[in-house]
């Protein structure tokens, strides 16, 4: 029988190549534990956005069912990851003048300045996904974490705002709702990946999290403990496969296989002059391909992609922040030599992402593809912790647990 646990947190990522659902649980000590994982190949998704609802829905259902079975729970609500070329991030500053005679900064002043920073002039079809507080400035002094109780006359705050086109995000929300699931919150997938991978020390040092997905590349820059920059490019592993299919004149499914088997982010010295023979189902040779071409096509695409990201960071003025390291995740992190390529482009140490401070299934935690969904769970757990457990809520919880026990017996 399924148990309904109030401490259940589910992250759902509808990616371009696969749908991934991760079930986490907050145990009695308050630590997050991953207890279930479900995945299904995604269909009807292009460049991170849903293009065919019916088939995409089926993929999501499969993933959810698999996760439910593995964790032996019933999933009712999820934290949903969203991405797509329309998602953008920028920094905004709110200003508030402290008017009280003693110029003590009160709680109201803080909430006012944050409110000011959040009033942003967005196109009317866009809506905010996240607004993350960065740092306070007091009379022009930077780097103040909490100004409450300090003295000053001009209080400013920087927030990082991630926004996207409402309708395009609504598509995936609707799809999930059609499966009778409640969407707790939508979360930008890049942010989720960063949460899964970065320790607070790394956030402080400055880091770039690069999620090389199937249809999109999401990236987030952290520095001084806060988000500095986010971005999405609608280029991913699909493009690599498409390039290979076009360049080597093979069907897309074959290109996909070749990519996994022979792909490389750099042209191997050893592969120069080598050829691959592809065979059909009967094991008869169909075609001979030049391995060097394959790797060159692939490396050109990946290099271009990383260059574009680098250029964007440069334009946003955050490139110097990432000296702490570049952390790769997503399916693209599995490409051989990708770390080497990224290192040469970003001039920073590159490592493949790993989760931290989460315990649970070893098999799930090791895979770069699952990091985003795990990050969604982590996001959920942070949200849950923030929820104040008042007197009423605790009574409610006790009552409901008694009630469910009665019903199940």
């Amino acid at each position: 029988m399924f148990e309904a646990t109030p401490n259940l947190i589910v992250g759902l990522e509808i990616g371009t190549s696969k749908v991934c659902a991760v079930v986490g649980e907050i145990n009695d000590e308050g630590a997050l534990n991953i207890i279930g994982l479900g995945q299904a190949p995604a269909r009807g998704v292009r460049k991170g956005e849903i293009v065919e609802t019916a088939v995409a829905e089926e993929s999501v259902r499969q993933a959810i069912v698999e996760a439910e079975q593995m964790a032996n729970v019933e999933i009712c609500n999820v934290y949903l990851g969203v991405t797509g070329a329309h998602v953008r991030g920028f920094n905004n500053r709110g200003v508030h003048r402290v008017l009280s005679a003693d110029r003590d900064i009160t709680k109201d002043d803080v909430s006012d300045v944050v409110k000011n920073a959040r009033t942003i002039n967005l196109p009317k079809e866009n809506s905010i996904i996240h607004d993350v507080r960065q740092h306070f400035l007091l009379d022009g002094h930077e780097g103040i974490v909490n100004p409450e109780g300090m003295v000053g006359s001009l209080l400013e705050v920087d927030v990082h705002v991630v926004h996207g086109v409402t309708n395009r995000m609504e598509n995936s929300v609707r799809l999930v709702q059609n499966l009778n699931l409640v969407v707790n919150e939508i979360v930008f997938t890049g942010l989720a990946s960063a949460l899964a991978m970065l320790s607070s020390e790394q956030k402080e040092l400055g880091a770039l999290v690069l999620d090389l997905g199937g249809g999109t590349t999401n990236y987030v820059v952290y520095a001084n403990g806060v988000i500095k920059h986010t971005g999405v490019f609608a280029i991913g592993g699909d493009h690599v496969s498409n390039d290979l299919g076009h360049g080597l004149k093979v069907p897309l499914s074959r290109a996909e296989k070749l990519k996994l088997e022979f792909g490389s982010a750099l042209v191997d010295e050893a592969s120069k002059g080598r050829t691959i023979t592809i065979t059909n189902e009967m094991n008869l040779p169909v075609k001979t391909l030049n391995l060097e071409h394959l790797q060159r096509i692939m490396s050109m695409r990946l290099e271009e992609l990383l260059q574009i990201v680098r250029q964007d960071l440069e334009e946003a003025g955050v490139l110097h922040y990432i000296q702490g390291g570049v952390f790769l995740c997503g399916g693209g992190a599995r490409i051989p030599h990708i770390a080497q390529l990224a290192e040469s482009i970003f001039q920073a140490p590159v490592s493949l992402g790993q989760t931290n401070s989460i315990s649970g299934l070893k098999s799930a935690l090791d895979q770069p593809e699952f990091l985003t969904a795990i990050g969604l769970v982590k996001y959920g757990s942070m949200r849950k912790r923030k929820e104040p457990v008042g007197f009423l809520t605790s009574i409610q919880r006790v009552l409901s647990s008694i009630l469910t026990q009665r019903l199940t017996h």
Partner: protein
Amino acid sequence: MTTNPETQTPALEITGTPVIKIIGIGTAGVGLLATLNGPEFAGAALVAVTTDQPALAASPAPHKLLLEPRELRGLGTGGDAERGYALAEEHFTTLKTACAGANVILLVAGLGGGAGSGITPVIARAARETGALVLAFVTLPFECEGNRRCAQARASLDQIKAVADGVICLPNQKAAKLIDDKTSVLETYSISGGLLTEAIRGVWQLMTRPGLIQIHLADLCALVRDKNSEGVFAFVESSGPARSREVVEKLLAHPLLDEGRALNESDAVLVSLMAGVDLTMGEVNRVMEQITRQCERAQVIMGAAVDEAWQNRLSVTVIAAKHSQVPVLPADAPGYRPGRIAGRATPTPTPAPATNPLLMQQREQLIKQHAAAVHRKNGPKMKQEMLPLVTSSKGRFDKSEPTIHKGEDLDVPTYFRRGMPLN
């Protein structure tokens, strides 16, 4: 020119500013003329030609020409292009006189109806015979306007292409991409009319405004003369510090350019930039670089003009011309019926582009011979259609929203864009 008065096409001497006539034909054309009757187009001779008395009366154009035979009783052609055609033939000399004395003649018409589709080819021919450069700006009807109108418009377009130097054609159906479901019918037509006006304005500015990098009429002539080109155009505008990037983005996403594909297919591209005195060479460079990258095999002509009033704004007009693959139709053949040929294509080898009057004569001869042949057979001629041989490099992203970054379509394989050789 006194030496040779008998030349077939007595090319007018171009001295100083060219003399430009804008002729609006049919109800739509005359209507559009009204929008062109502003101070911006001062110096242009506007001529309105139609068969419909009330429409003509309402037109502010200084010169009006009513083609009115008795049998129509001033009621117009009733949507029949054949009637319009016959009527125009009847008044051929009058039309020719109206066209005389101009270096450039711009024809404005909405094809599909009787007057627009019937008269425009004849005027184009009359204008051509006066030696002027003839550019036609026409719209094709919406698909929902019915088969007959569409077929009539198509047939007329082919005829115009055969006689005019250049045709810039705006299929209204493409303009439909610019509107949403809630746009009213009136607005839709004014949008498509507005687009056409933009094109005319672009060409007008090109020819009349003193430019930093000027496009001379001679350039325009060289680009379109005798090539029977079929063109698409786009006009985009932007302001602010990132304007050069924005205009390129807008241009490549422009529905009339098929999201940039039209540039790729064109043989000749004319780019006209217009901005305030703050236009920098860097910006010109940036815009041109992106555009030329899109159309590598085309001949690109660019011009830049500066207008004091355009502080902080930048507009780009692009006219991309593809040399017509459509056979030159026997527009002046005896017994020619525009309505009949609608719906089936008559294949003929395109005569070599004529470059001098002698070749022109030969071409005319060829056309006449062919016309006679067609007339004799007078039966439906079968043609084996060819499937368009287009291989899209975008593969699975062909139908998805393109990923455009700084004017480059990133869905196209990188190795392909960089021109990496694969042997």
